[in-house]
């Protein structure tokens, strides 16, 4: 027997591989070069040029950096921007940690609903959320009209809006969901047996938290913090809407260099400085957040068992905790609820008391031609972006997962880079790239710009699903006599379909809500959020509330469907996965 076996030629390759064309790796390299590498190199290159008479002169110089080096106001602004985002992310984590702990380890029922409720605001247009805060904080805003109406203040205060504080508040508002998701995921993963082992070893509740729960969740806090920090540090929408002069942030300066000021090299230099400082901050945060050791997953994730016979004191404590847990939800949803309420208010002043119900603002929308055109454009852009991203991402996911790409780890990380670049910087990077390729501003540019960050998101989702897939399924299919193509059609694709559709829907909401990148690329053909943004700069019309309400409802529907699909996908995965 052994002789026969040794005579057989041994196959050199791994037995289980989809034999797809090995050219499959090339699109990955091409995407990386065209949409990640070249644009970012362009940014760095441009920062070493100078302008003359509003045109870029190809004359290598470090003038822009020298100017920044000497500019005290730039350095102040950079530090202020970093400090505000850092502060907001830190406060966000402080608020989100107890929430996540409560949701992950105390609540027994409806946990997924509680989690979804925190995540939903993430998908509601950023513009809408920021605008809601303006409505609350403004001089004629709801906070002022409440304070004056209740006699606490004699006249409306200007202290709320157009200050550094209002930016910090809004950034915190944006940060909470990011911090929450990351921390919740980690806390939920801590096996209950570890908590019991700690108690069994004689540790009190506080000691258990300090020595077991906190070290195990610290990396997630760092991740949540970093996500929140990244989201706000490149934000130029929020400061220009609620910040005023005192709340100016560096993103606005970069944006203006590519707009009114029209000094691209200088703007690029600021962007490079911003990226480098953000990189340094994040590196420090990640370093501080690391914990040694690996959860092996065999510790047994028994859900906590409800304690019986609570004493009255404990019951009071429980009730207190539940109330405290509800407060952040109020903070998250009050602005959105106000906006919906105001969209039905029969008055062009955004203040209480309400003056009666109306559908007037919705009616006005239906007659607004330029808006309808923008909606149409948003849909076209969204569909194009989603199609391009989903097809590409699925192909890339296969290529990476089935070993058709050299240095797969590197490319997986590199393709995701645009997601980790501050919004304003990604915007100008894409301007530079599309300008070089001589693509005119408009739909084409927008699609390319948005696809650069939508594709990686879909890729991550599909890849995660592929990795959870049990390899034995494919082997079983082949074993049952299916060839590669049949296996793909009948086994592989059905198992990842949910992830692809979910990723596509998520991509659509990302595309439809985006302002930061799109604003640079749209030129004279605005998508809906850009149109709204332009409207708001000219002055406020209550119709904006109506648009946002409709967009919000639309996003919500998309999320519910997307969540359902992803859940079904993961439920199917849980059955077959590890």
């Amino acid at each position: 027997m052994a002789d026969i076996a040794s005579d057989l030629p041994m196959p050199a390759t791994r037995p289980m591989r989809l034999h797809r064309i090995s050219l499959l790796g090339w699109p990955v390299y091409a995407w990386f070069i065209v949409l990640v590498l070249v644009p970012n190199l362009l940014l760095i290159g441009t920062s070493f040029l100078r302008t003359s008479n509003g045109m870029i002169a190809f004359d290598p110089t470090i003038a822009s950096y020298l100017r920044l080096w000497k500019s005290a106001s730039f350095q102040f602004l950079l530090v202020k921007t970093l400090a505000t985002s850092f502060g907001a992310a830190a406060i966000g984590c402080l608020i989100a940690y107890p929430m996540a702990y409560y949701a992950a380890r105390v609540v027994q029922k409806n946990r997924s609903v509680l989690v979804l409720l925190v995540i939903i605001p993430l998908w509601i247009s950023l513009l809408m959320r920021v605008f809601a805060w303006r409505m609350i904080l403004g001089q004629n805003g709801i906070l002022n009209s409440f304070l004056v109406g209740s006699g606490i203040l004699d006249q409306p205060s200007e202290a709320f809006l157009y200050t550094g504080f209002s930016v910090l508040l809004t950034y915190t508002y944006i940060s909470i969901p990011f911090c929450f998701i990351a921390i919740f995921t980690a806390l939920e993963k801590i096996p209950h047996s570890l908590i019991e082992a700690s108690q069994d070893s004689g540790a009190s509740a506080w000691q258990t938290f300090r020595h077991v729960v906190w070290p195990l969740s610290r990396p997630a806090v760092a991740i949540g913090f970093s996500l929140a920090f990244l989201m706000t540090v490149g934000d130029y929408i929020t400061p220009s809407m609620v910040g005023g002069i005192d709340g100016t942030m560096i993103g606005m300066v970069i944006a203006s260099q590519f707009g009114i000021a029209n000094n691209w090299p200088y703007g690029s230099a600021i962007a490079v400085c911003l990226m480098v400082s953000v990189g340094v901050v994040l590196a420090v945060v990640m370093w501080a957040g690391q914990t040694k050791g690996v959860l092996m997953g065999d510790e047994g994730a028994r859900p906590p068992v409800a304690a019986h016979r609570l004493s009255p004191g404990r019951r009071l404590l429980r009730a207190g905790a539940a109330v405290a847990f509800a407060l952040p939800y109020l903070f998250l949803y009050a602005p959105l609820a106000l906006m919906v309420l105001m969209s039905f208010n029969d008055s062009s002043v955004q203040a209480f008391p309400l003056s009666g119900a109306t559908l007037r603002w919705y009616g006005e929308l239906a007659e607004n031609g330029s808006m309808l055109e923008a909606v149409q454009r948003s849909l076209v852009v969204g569909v194009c972006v989603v199609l391009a991203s989903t097809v590409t991402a699925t192909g890339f996911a296969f290529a990476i997962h089935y070993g058709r790409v050299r240095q797969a780890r590197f490319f997986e990380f590199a393709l995701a880079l645009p997601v980790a670049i501050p919004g304003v910087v990604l915007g100008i990077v894409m301007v530079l790239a599309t300008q070089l390729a001589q693509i005119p501003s408009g739909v084409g540019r927008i699609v390319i710009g948005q696809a650069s960050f939508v594709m990686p998101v879909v890729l991550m989702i599909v890849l995660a699903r592929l990795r959870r897939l049990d390899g034995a399924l494919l082997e079983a299919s082949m074993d049952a006599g299916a060839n590669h193509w049949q296996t793909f059609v009948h086994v592989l694709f059905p198992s990842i379909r949910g992830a692809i559709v979910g990723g596509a829907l998520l991509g659509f909401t990302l595309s439809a809500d985006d302002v930061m990148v799109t604003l640079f690329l749209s030129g004279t053909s605005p998508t809906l959020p850009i149109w709204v943004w332009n409207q708001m700069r000219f002055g406020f019309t209550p119709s904006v509330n109506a648009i946002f309400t409709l967009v919000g409802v639309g996003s919500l529907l998309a999320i519910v469907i997307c969540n359902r699909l992803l859940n079904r996908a993961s439920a199917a995965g849980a059955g077959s996965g590890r």
Partner: protein
Amino acid sequence: MTDASQPILSLARIDKTYDGATRPALDRVSLAVAPGEFFSILGPSGSGKTTLLRMIAGFERPDVGRVLMDGEDITDVPPFRRDVRTVFQSYALFPHMNVLENVAYPLRMAGARKAERLAKARDCLHLVSMGDFAARLPHQLSGGQRQRIALARAIVCRPRVLLLDEPLGALDLRLRQQMQHMLVSLQRELGIAFVYVTHDQGEALSMSDRVAVMSEGRIAQLGTPREIYFAPSSEFVAQFVGRSNLLPIDCEPRGGALTALLDGKPLPGVAVPRSGAARMAIRFECVRLAPAGEPAEGSCSVPGTVEDVLFLGNALEVNVRCGGLNIIAAVPSAEGERFASGQPVQVLFDAANATVFHG
């Protein structure tokens, strides 16, 4: 074990029903563990043995009943104030601490100084022969090694009672046997009372001073391994512990005495308490086989035909068809190829080895 020694741990009439469950997880369970005793709780999954263990550790509260330790009521004492340590089924090693830190954790919680606790933890690691692994992280260890660390962490404080929740469940056969020897010698050396939960009767019988067999939240039988094995008090115990034939018999008065009838034929010497239908348990290894026609010589004898033979290494399991019944006999494999399918044989067993259950 003398009666004079006060039990280190006793449970008094414990009831527990989980929320939403229809059947109680524990139903009037009482037991006492003597100091330094190796006490096993044996039962199939879902019999309540893990609930019982968690009750002792303090992770569950009984609905009714008391948990006493050294005569002191600890029912309402939280787990971290009980002088009880648990070796978790999943080991539950802290993934972010190295082996030494894991073992020193209980000492750290007790407020021991660093030098002292590290020294003690090192001693304890040597005790489980893991001295060379102090700096490793749990994910760098094999299952058997993690098992030893979990054990070391549990005994480093020298608790009065050590709870072990199926600690060998995840190990392969050879490691399991090694660990059994280690556990027994460790228990002798430390003099700690072990409460050992398992569904593996081999582990329970080989290591324990006493065994409680659990079924559906109740203690079905409590006794020494010998008692459990040779004098099962119920059909459940007979079937769960060891491997037994369960044969339907009829008990009728015949010739002035109650006699057991198997398939209509009398079994001389089998003691039956009352008349009516009953079942007789007889262990595989208590059944002998002889060529057909050989005299029975005082044993009960049933004729039959060999249906199939399983080779188990040290023994053969021979399945014999006797009329409407199947009787399995475990015979030493040294008896060789004497039995083949279709061969007529005599099934023999001693009446003393049979246990009869009514109802």
